[in-house]
């Protein structure tokens, strides 16, 4: 082969290798790093307050779950929530009357659904501006670019994005500080903590066998190590089979689930879901799974499963009851 052709072939091979490596690396990286952003752990709410002579708050600075110190010119009087979880938290601490606008998915509590709608995945910036809020609260699922847009228009945003139970309690307290409903927030956090402990005391006690548990929030989509769901299952007294996987939010193979042989299967239901026990049992090889043979397939409302607000404790209690009927019957 001539010199030119030789060089060309070598160049081609290197291109091939380089592109393949880059592609493989980025896909793998995406899988292992996970999609969520950085969240702050720890249970203490970080904040500072400036008062004036008359005892009014002139400046309120609270650090959100991204570690951002958000400064406000006082307690917000009008709040727009663009995610269902912060909406639930705000109403739960008694600040529901401060909420003037919500996104399409904020359906709990019922009063929240009556607020002015400001969009779903894509925010209706005009509607938000029209409400002229003092603060926007969001979870980590709203695209950063849209929040930046709001900042440019002069509206600060505050992120609620927790990954564990302590974080939920902290989020509740954070909401209390933000809305100056500190007492209610503390009370709520305490009662939730008490309920969590009540469950944990029984489920994590010595001698309690943890059943192998498989929880899916969408067909084959389960909870991997480091995810909230993994922690949820642990506290509920189960052994999450997904804990042995690599990604935080993996898609499990049938073979994995069958090999793991869960004793209990829990799946999420919602208005759009098509899963049911029959469908699960019909999956290839799943009829050999203990949970299927023993008809230990249960469902949980997808909203309490995936919203990390006060109702996650409801979910914990329900899950604990499913996993340990002998302890909570």
């Amino acid at each position: 082969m001539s010199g030119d052709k030789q060089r060309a072939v070598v160049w081609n091979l290197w291109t091939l290798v380089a592109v393949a490596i880059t592609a493989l690396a980025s896909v793998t990286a995406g899988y292992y790093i996970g999609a969520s952003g950085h969240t702050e752990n720890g249970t203490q709410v970080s904040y500072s307050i400036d008062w004036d002579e008359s005892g009014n708050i002139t400046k309120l600075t609270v650090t959100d779950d991204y570690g951002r110190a958000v400064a406000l010119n006082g307690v917000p009087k009008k709040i727009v929530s663009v995610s269902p979880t912060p909406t639930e938290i705000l109403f739960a601490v008694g600040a529901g009357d401060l909420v003037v606008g919500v996104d399409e998915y904020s359906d709990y509590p019922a009063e929240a659904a009556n607020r002015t709608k400001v969009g779903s995945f894509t925010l209706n910036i005009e509607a938000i501006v029209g409400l002229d809020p003092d603060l926007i609260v969001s979870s980590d699922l709203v695209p950063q670019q849209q929040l930046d847009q709001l900042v440019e228009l002069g509206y600060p945003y505050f992120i609620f994005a927790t990954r564990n139970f302590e974080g939920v309690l902290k989020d509740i307290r954070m909401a209390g500080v933000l809305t100056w409903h500190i007492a209610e927030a503390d009370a709520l956090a305490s009662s939730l903590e008490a309920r969590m402990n009540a469950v944990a005391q029984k489920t994590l006690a010595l001698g309690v066998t943890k059943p192998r548990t498989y929880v899916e929030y969408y067909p084959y989509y389960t909870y991997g190590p480091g995810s909230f769901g993994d922690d949820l299952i642990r506290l509920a007294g189960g052994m999450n089979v997904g804990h042995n996987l690599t990604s935080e939010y993996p898609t499990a193979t049938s073979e994995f689930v069958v090999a793991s042989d869960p004793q209990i299967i829990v799946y999420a239901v919602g208005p759009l879901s098509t899963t049911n026990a029959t469908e699960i049992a019909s999956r290839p090889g799943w009829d050999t799974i203990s949970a299927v043979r023993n008809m230990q397939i249960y469902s949980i409302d997808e909203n309490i499963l995936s919203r990390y607000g006060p109702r996650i404790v409801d979910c914990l209690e329900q899950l604990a009851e499913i996993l340990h009927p002998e302890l909570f019957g």
Partner: protein
Amino acid sequence: MSPGPGDGAAAVADIASVRRRHRLILLGLLGLLVLTFFLAVFTGYTGPIAPVSGDRLSFGEAFQGLFGHTSNSVFFWDIRVPRILFAGIVGAALACAGTAMQAIFRNSMADPFIIGVSSGAAVGAVCASVLGFGAFLGSLASPLFAFFSALVTVLVVYSLGVVKGRVYVDTVLLSGVAVAAFLGAVVSFIIYYAGERYDRLIPWLLGSFADARWSYVEAAALPVVAGALVVYLYGRDLNAILMGEETAYNLGTDPDQLKKVMLGVAALITSAAVAFVGIVGFVGLIVPHMMRLLVGADHRILVPASTLFGATFLIAADAVARTAVIGEELPVGIITALCGGPFFLYLLRRNRIRGEAK
């Protein structure tokens, strides 16, 4: 550019040896398919072929599970074998349809989706899974809707290119592009309107064999095998039409009938493939290319070669998709794109070099 004694290109001027070599390659491809099949059967989370050591089956246990009746048999007969067979069927269908489309459109960049199959199937699948059409059919809803909407879309695309019984492939191609763009917007709108999380549909849009089961194999096997057979039998006609429609007519083929038959068969087998697993890209495009490099352009050899290698390729890609990350699924479309993308670039570059050298 007459052949010279030292001219590398003239080295294989003996047609008899060329044809003998091609036949051996065909046999080799069959062997490769069988080998890949068995390797894939032994690959999986529980092993014996698996990425990390640990709680894996030994080869002995695997054999017993495969050929006997142990507790491990479920991994083989319920999970792996139907999935591998289905991956093979889909790969064969896509590669075979791709070969036919590249001939009909006289364009080696054509793939089986250009006639609107993918966008049509997407609409059907999204209507079923997101809007809940046909919910009473259970898990069959999505494939059925996808299949029929794919066929309807192809019919629309095709009829846009037919005038008085004559099929104008350039128009069919362009209308395929336009219809795909339109339907893509429709799919996005449906997803947005229904509030479904877009990322949940990505596996389907990228192609995934996660849910493959025996009923899929049973449903798809017959149409795909029949379709591939038809394409093979029309092999000489495909050769002729590549030389131009008038030449094909001169050699005794009816070009319009050929186009109709091939478009119909390709639509059928591609829709059957896509309906269950989503849009697996690149297979229908690059497998015919690779096989042409290996066995030349005579479709009587190329079609079986593409069909065999398409099956092999997708079986291997799926084996990677279900074992690369332990216990987790990667959409197989990612694997085929990872292989296909660089290979495509290589092909383009190679054609450019060839073109400059002339």
